[in-house]
């Protein structure tokens, strides 16, 4: 899930959009992100975004857009500014950290040795 950058002076340089920017409608409403739970117990997934002046309106509209067909079990409504997008979240890519991966462990040889010592190794 990627959120569009806020543009203008506050944005960090990667914007490409036109000078009008993607900031919610230039003096119109706020943008709210809606996350929805498809079924009970499921993770909340991003459903979409909508424009509304405040949380009361945002909730009314979120119910309409993501609930009028009874298609969502629950919703989270979040102002866009509250969401921090992190691209390429992997923090340490230089040194190998195989201790964090399944393939970083090789037990076959040690297990064979341990079984032989205990006299429990299988007949060949």
């Amino acid at each position, binding site marked *: 899930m990627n959120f569009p950058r806020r543009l203008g002076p506050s944005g960090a340089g990667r914007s490409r959009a036109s000078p009008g920017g993607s900031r919610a409608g230039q003096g119109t409403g706020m943008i709210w992100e809606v996350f929805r739970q498809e079924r009970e117990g499921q993770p909340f997934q991003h459903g979409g975004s909508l424009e509304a002046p405040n949380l009361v*309106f945002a909730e*009314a*509209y979120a119910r309409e857009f993501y609930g009028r067909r009874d298609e969502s079990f629950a919703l989270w409504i979040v102002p866009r500014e509250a969401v921090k997008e992190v691209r390429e979240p992997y923090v340490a890519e230089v040194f190998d950290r195989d201790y964090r991966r399944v393939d970083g462990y090789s037990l076959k040889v040690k297990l064979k040795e341990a079984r032989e010592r205990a006299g429990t190794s299988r007949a060949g």
Partner: protein
Amino acid sequence: MNAQALLELADDELVLGWRDSEWTGIAPFLEEDVAFSSIAQTEIGHARAWYELAAKELGTDADALAFDRDPAEYLCAPFVELRLVHDWAQTIARHWLYESADAIRIDALKSSDDPDIAGLAEKVDREEVYHRMHAAMWEERLRGEPAFQKAVDDLWPSAAALLPPDQRATLATIVGKDVPSNRLLLAHERGQHSDDFRPLWEEMTMVRRSVPGASW
């Protein structure tokens, strides 16, 4: 409660739902368009439910009641007939006044001796919660707007006339107004139609009347 009273309720919901559906596609902004359209649909859905109850008593069906009567036979109040489209202030004023009024009469119906009526009133009331939230949301946002205040003032006598006389004082308290004089109410009482009703009826029934008796 007799069929006549059921028809008053059903006709009110049908005509208001028809009026509210005039905003589908042209509401002030897209998000609101979707929300307001749901309200119109719910009103029509409620009308259908009341018609179905009346239809059982009258030996007909809901569509015949909704579409096949002559204009004079409809029992809706002038309040819901008014053509307000393109004026959002008036539309929301009516929405807020109507929801306030309707809450009172639905509440009374929940205690009806007739289990069908009480049961339906209970169901309708649950769905109306969302309408009331929506109306309150907009009333709060627009109450500082002169156009909205004027609309509420202009529509108030008509709104009061929607309810039977014994429920009007309650409504007046809720919306912060005085019960209008009988002289003022006279023009808005149920039993007559506003000038806006005939064109509405013509448009509402034109396809239906084009091939009488057909299934659509």
